[in-house]
C-alpha cells in the first residue's frame, strides 16, 4: 500500500464548521427548504467519504479561499480517521433524509441532531466522534484473518 493520504487538520475543522451551519439550518428552516439542505449535506458527505475528502465542495472552498490566507499547515493528519467519520455522518444524515421524506419528522430531527452534535464537537474542540466509535464497533466483529 502506498503512503496513506494526508490532510490539513484546519481544513477538517472548517469542513465541520460548514457542516454544522448547514445542519443547524436544516433544523430551523421550513419544509421543503430543510429537506433540500439536508439532501445537499448527504451528497457532500457521500463525496467526502466515498470519493475523496479533498473532492467535497467544503474542502474546495477551504483550499481556494481559506488556505491562501492562512498559509501552510504546521503538520498534516492521516486522512483515514476523518474519512471514516464522514461515512458515519453520511449514515446519520441519510437516515434523517429518508425519515423526513417518509414523514417521520421526529426521527429526522433526532438523526439530524446527532449529526449536528458530532460536527459541532469536531469544529469546536477537534473531537472526532465517528473515530471514537470505530474501535467500539470493531470489538464486536471477528478479528481479521
Amino acid at each position: 500500500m502506498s503512503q496513506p493520504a494526508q490532510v490539513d487538520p484546519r481544513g477538517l475543522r472548517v469542513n465541520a464548521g460548514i457542516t454544522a451551519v448547514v445542519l443547524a439550518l436544516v433544523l430551523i428552516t421550513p419544509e421543503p427548504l430543510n429537506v433540500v439542505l439536508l439532501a445537499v449535506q448527504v451528497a457532500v458527505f457521500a463525496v467526502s467519504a466515498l470519493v475523496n475528502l479533498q473532492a467535497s465542495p467544503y474542502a474546495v472552498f477551504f483550499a481556494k479561499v481559506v488556505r491562501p490566507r492562512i498559509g501552510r499547515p504546521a503538520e498534516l493528519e492521516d486522512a483515514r480517521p476523518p474519512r471514516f467519520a464522514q461515512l458515519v455522518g453520511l449514515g446519520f444524515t441519510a437516515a434523517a433524509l429518508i425519515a423526513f421524506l417518509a414523514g417521520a419528522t421526529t426521527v429526522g430531527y433526532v438523526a439530524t441532531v446527532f449529526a449536528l452534535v458530532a460536527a459541532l464537537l469536531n469544529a469546536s474542540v477537534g473531537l472526532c466522534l465517528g473515530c471514537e466509535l470505530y474501535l467500539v464497533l470493531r470489538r464486536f466483529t471477528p478479528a481479521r484473518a
Partner: protein
Amino acid sequence: MAGIVALLAALVLTGFAAWAVKAKNGRFKDRPPHSDAEILTATDIGAELGERATLVQFSSAFCSPCRATRVLLTDIAAKVDGVTTVDIDAEEHLDMVRRLGILRTPTVLVLDGAGTVSTRASGLPRREQVLAALGQAVGERR
C-alpha cells in the same frame, strides 16, 4: 418550533459532551483492588517489559490523537530510566482489547516492573499526568 428546540438540545448536548471528554482525556484511574489487577506479559505486548515500568498504548488507524500520544510516550520513555513504551494496534489484538475492556484509542496502560496494570487512561494525556501515573506505578514496588 420543534426545530428550534432540537437546535438548542444539540447545543446543550455538545457543550456537555465537550466538557465530559475534556475532563476524561488523560485522567488515570485509581488502581483497581489487587486481586482484580490484570497482568500483561512480554508475549502479550510483543516486547520486553521495562525494568521499572512499561507504557502500553493501544492505537487504531481511525484515531487522530494517537500520534501525539505516541510522541509523548516515546519522549518520556527516552528520558526516564527503566521505562519503555510499546504501541499496540488494537485491531490486531481484539482479544486483548476485549479482555481489558478497552473502548477508545488511544488507551494508555501503565504497567509496573512485574507487568501488573497499575492504572490506565484514555484520550491524549498531558505529560504531567503520565509522569504522576508512572511515579505511582514505580513507587508501589518499593
